[in-house]
Structures are given as C-alpha cells and as structure tokens.
C-alpha cells in the first residue's frame, strides 16, 4: 500500500494545490473551443490531481475519496455521454456526431446546438480519460495487486 506521507511539507502544499489543479482541469475542459486544450487534456490534468493525491494522502485515502466503483462508473459514463450525443444525431436523421440537428430537441438555434454538442462530447472524453488514467496509474504503481507498490 502506498502510505500516507509523513512529510509535513509535501502533505500541506499538496493539500493546498490539489483543488486549484482540479479547477484548472475543469477550466481546460470547459474552454476547449477558445484556448488550447479540450477533453483529453483536461481529463489528464484531473488525473494528475489524483496522482498528487496518491502521493500526498496515500492510496488508501485516495481510494476512499474516489472509489473503485465510482471509477468504473465514470469510465463508462464518459463513453455513454459520447455515444449518445452521436446517436441522438443519428436518430434525428443526420450523420453520426452532426450536432446541428440537435436544435430540434434543445432550446437553441443550430449554431448554439453545435456548440453544446461539441461541449458534451468534450465532457464525455474528459470523464473517461480521467477515470482510465487514474486506474492505469494505480494498476501500474502497485503491479495490479493494489497492495504493495512504489
């Protein structure tokens, strides 16, 4: 098990910096259209904040905050959001991921609907990337046993 660090400095500084990093990840996801970044990058930053949490608070505490079950739910929820945004377009009679027809069910004109569709795709990608990155990291550092490691 990756233990809680006994080192006061690293623990305190990480505690202060983790919320800021998480908020930055969400910012990158939300502003994917106007600045560099998007779903994948934002998801990676969110995963990085969880890696920092593993360093600072230990694996046990991290798993209590972000459980295995929640991780599985998130990693499939992202794909679900992605796929259903595409399928809605298909069901409304356009191509896969052709967002502009979403204006039929959303209270928005086609340009705004394209915008919202793109945003929901990015949210889906971000959620999946975050969950998969976190589980990859935990599997790698513990050799898949979630016990001893690093």
């Amino acid at each position, binding site marked *: 098990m990756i*233990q*809680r*660090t*006994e*080192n006061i400095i*690293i623990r305190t500084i990480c505690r202060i*910096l983790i919320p800021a*990093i998480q908020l*930055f990840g969400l910012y*990158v996801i939300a502003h994917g259209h106007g*600045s*560099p*970044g998007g779903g994948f*990058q934002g998801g990676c*930053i969110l995963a*990085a904040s969880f*890696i*920092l949490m593993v*360093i600072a608070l230990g694996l046990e505490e991290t798993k209590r905050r972000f459980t295995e079950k929640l991780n599985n739910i998130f990693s499939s929820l992202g794909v679900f959001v992605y796929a259903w945004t595409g399928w809605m377009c298909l069901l409304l009679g356009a191509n896969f991921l052709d967002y502009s027809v979403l204006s039929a069910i959303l209270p928005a004109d086609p340009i705004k609907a394209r915008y919202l569709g793109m945003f929901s795709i990015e949210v889906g990608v971000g959620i999946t990337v975050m969950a998969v990155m976190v589980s990859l990291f935990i599997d790698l550092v513990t050799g898949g046993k979630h016990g001893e490691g*690093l």
Partner: protein
Amino acid sequence: MDNFLLGVSIFLSVLAILSLYRAIFGPTDMDRIIGVGAVGTKTLVILILMGFIYKRVDMFIDIALLYAIINFIGGLLFARFFMRKGVL
C-alpha cells in the same frame, strides 16, 4: 522590444542546453532529476516569451501553467520513485 525578447529566449535555450549536461552525465540519479527540472524552468519562461513574440499570450499562458503543474508533479514522483523502500 521583440528583438530583446527573442534574444532572451535564445539565451535561455543555451542555458537549458547547459543544464542538459547534468541530465545526461550526472553522476547520480538525483543529479539527472534536478537537471531535467532545471530544463523545465527555462522552458516555462521560453513558453511565455513565445506567447509575447507570436502575440498570443492568452493562449500560451495556459500551456505554461500546465507545464508548471506537470513539472511539479513530475519532480515529486521522480523523487519518490528513486528513493527505494521509503515513504516520501
């Protein structure tokens, strides 16, 4: 002013290459880590300078902040990784 910024970024690149010497030939593992970290600090400044040179500061600033975060986490992780059998 643009020429000044360009000169500063070239000078910083030279400094980054000098720091790379320790990252390659450093006697211990820890020397290599701080060599990479030193290259990272120079790269951070170069990224923002590039933003000023290309007149897109608002764009490069996000990359620079991300780079700072990655450098921070990378340093901590490497330090922990190279210290065998211990808690950081």
